[in-house]
């Protein structure tokens, strides 16, 4: 691939999955209780997309990675201190809600608009990366809508592996039912890949990468535009978290077989 790829990764923060989440009625509709106090992490699927993008950029000379993030600026800033140590990227920050109750259509419009405005972006070389879904904010439709808005029609979802040929063509493994993969071929950019888990481990924290990234991260945060999102336009009939069951019971002198049988019965029920 002459000149390399321009890889734009869409990804933002979600509440740390270890936290207890509780929906409440906020002034602008549903929200999570104490959301701004909860620790946040990079959306896990977007994280895989970012790590895959960085690896691809490392292997294809001339490539560059942008991370386009829509989220509350203060929380994005905090998040960047963690992920900026892992891989190199240039941040495009958009200040707005990253709650789980924003409309994917609105989110896609904002992300596409921000991508179009990236200085020096060559859309003929564009690979649009993101998570195949978000851990908090959509049902797996945002990335397709961003791609549509950018006139990208080669779209792949739940991607676990991307094999790049020297001519820029790609072989892509998408997850399908029954644990199998659909193998697709694509002539090259532009294309959209919504990643599942990919095949790379999370990179270790590297202080030098962090220092390099910070030269662009802080200015990007400072000039982040505010996006009007999650402030009405939708009405929610009801909001609830996926059901969780937690039951504490202390049993003494119970054989492991009995405990195991009880769990099996519970699962069957």
């Amino acid at each position: 691939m002459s000149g390399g790829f321009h890889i734009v990764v869409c990804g933002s923060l979600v509440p740390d999955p270890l936290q207890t989440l509780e929906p409440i009625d906020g002034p602008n509709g549903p929200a999570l209780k104490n959301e701004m106090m909860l620790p946040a992490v990079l959306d896990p699927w977007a994280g895989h997309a970012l790590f895959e993008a960085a690896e691809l950029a490392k292997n294809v000379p001339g490539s560059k990675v942008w991370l386009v993030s829509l989220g509350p600026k203060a929380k994005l800033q905090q998040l960047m201190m963690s992920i900026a140590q892992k891989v190199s990227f240039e941040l495009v920050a958009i200040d707005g809600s990253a709650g789980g109750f924003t409309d994917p259509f609105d989110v896609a419009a904002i992300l596409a608009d921000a991508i179009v405005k990236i200085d020096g972006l060559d859309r003929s070389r564009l690979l649009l990366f993101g998570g195949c879904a978000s851990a908090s904010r959509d049902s797996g439709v945002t990335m397709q809508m961003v791609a549509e808005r950018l006139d990208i029609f080669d779209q792949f979802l739940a991607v676990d592996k991307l094999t790049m040929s020297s001519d820029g063509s790609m072989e892509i493994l998408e997850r399908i039912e029954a644990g199998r993969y659909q193998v697709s071929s694509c002539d090259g950019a532009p294309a959209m890949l919504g990643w599942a888990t990919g095949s790379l481990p999370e990179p270790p924290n590297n202080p030098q990468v962090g220092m390099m990234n910070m030269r662009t991260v802080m200015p990007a945060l400072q000039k982040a535009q505010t996006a009007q999102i999650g402030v009405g336009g939708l009405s929610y009939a009801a909001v609830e978290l996926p059901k969780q069951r937690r039951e504490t019971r202390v049993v003494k002198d119970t054989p492991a077989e009995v405990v195991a049988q009880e769990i099996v019965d519970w699962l069957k029920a």
Partner: protein
Amino acid sequence: MNIDRQTMEVDIACVGFGPATAGFMHTLSQAMTAEDGSVLLESKVMPGMPLQVVCYERADDIGFGVSGVVTRGKALRESFPDLDPAQMPMAASVSDEQVLYLKDPLGKSRRSSGVRMLDRLFGLLGTSDHAVKLPYIPPFLCKKNGLVLSIGQFSQWIGNQLMGSGLVQVWPGMPVSEPLLEEDRVVGIRLVDQGVETDGTAGPGYMPGMDIRAHLTVVGDGPVGPVGQKLDEHFGLPEGNHQDEWAGGMKFVVELPEDCTLQPGFVLHTLGYPEPEIFGFLYVYPDRVAALGIFVPSWLDSPVRSSYRLLQYWMQHPAIWKHLRGGTLRSWGAKSLQESGQRGEPVLAGDGFARIGEGSGSTNVLTGSGLDEAWATGVQLAEGVIELAKAGEPFSRANLERTYLARRRSSWVEADARIAKQSRYGFTRGMIPGLLGMALSGLSGGRFNVGGVFRRPWERIPVFKDYFRGQISEQEIDSIVEGCRQHGKPLFEPLMDKLGWPPIEYDGQLLISHQDALLIGGKVQAAHGFADHVRFVDPDACNNCESQICVAMCSGQAITASEGGGMPEFDREKCIHCGICMWNCTTSRPGDSLRSNVSFEAGSGGLHSAEN
């Protein structure tokens, strides 16, 4: 083995992002550039640029795994004259302050004749809910006009401001393993190796920790920080100083029940229960949220202490439970506190380094205050650094003593620390001499004190047979010990049961198992690729250890008894990095009578909650 490490050069490297480092970075960042953006404090490593200042924090985010606090806020208000608690989540002005003396509603605590007399004496003041509200709060303890804060939320609040300034950098998730020493000069820090096995040997994705070379290393890594420990090993403590007093703090953050009448800013201190030596606290934040917990002090000479179980008894005391019943756990945490104060002060400044905050002995145990003092020491160092940087002078020992130390020595932090220095000696002789000592030192401004001698756990924790004499027979003790060893179970549970402490009746909200508290409130996580940071130096010493207090006191149940006895097991992924194992171990290290058999080093992970 010669390892090829990446290096990076900065002007100032800070270790640990707590209140002290926050105070340092805040003050320094205010002076680095002029309003027009021109550089006032120029970098030596990047000429023309402002000082390059980085901070490495072990926890996965800033403000993880710290504590709730009540503070007079003196130093904070000097830095933020217009400080409005409403700007910060989980903060309020102190609205009411009470001290409760808790009697024992179960009759199971170990009360000396002096404490029983105190029960009767305080009882004359009128008892309600098995507790006596003291009519007088001594001025040295009083936090009138102060603040209740979540240090976690405070750290995030100030951290965001700092990072938003673009002048300093704070990198979480990056533990620092040791200082870089060239003879007696500190020339920077070494970050931990990543991609290693639990024993520290290189594994897949091995990445040697980077060396950060710095003109000044600011050590604010708290009471169990590895850099501070290694500096103490190298330099020793100043003549006559000892770090021999500490406490294990454990707390809940609770959403109070809807009918709770406690108002934001309410502060409650308790003493007397579940053991007389255990102090408790309850601070109320806005929106019906409270931080509450206990401190298990070093002078509680019990070989069966378990902070978690004791905390559950404390919460159920009628005087506390009436406020909590129906509440739910939001967050949980624990930490150790270095309570030697000025008596445990290390070498505060040397060539290329300075120490600030709790690890520097700034915590004041008489006033029960640490955040404000820690912040103040950070500010004092920053002012010294600004003076030196403006003059283009190096960060030498002499210069740091002239600037930072001189400020610290002439400040209220030092004056208060001197009053507190001998205030708790009395506790080494018992609860009553301890309380008298605090009162005497506090009311006399430190002129009069009750004497005593602090001893290490291996010099004073009694063996089971002595401790339980008259309560549990030697045969029963032997049987319990043998049974627990065979099955790898902790000793404190059957022993406390045997003493008659009732089982905790779980309610699934506040009265929950330790493991549930870890899962619901602790949210502990550790990244892969880091070495175990807790090590038992001499396995034979563990084999011969009767009490295995490290297991009982482990806040995260990361240290567990081994089946068949012997050296306990350590699970890095459960550790919350409180370091209490190191302080509580009842065996000294071979050839080192000052340090315990537990080595607590640099590690990754811990609590994932900033609501503490």
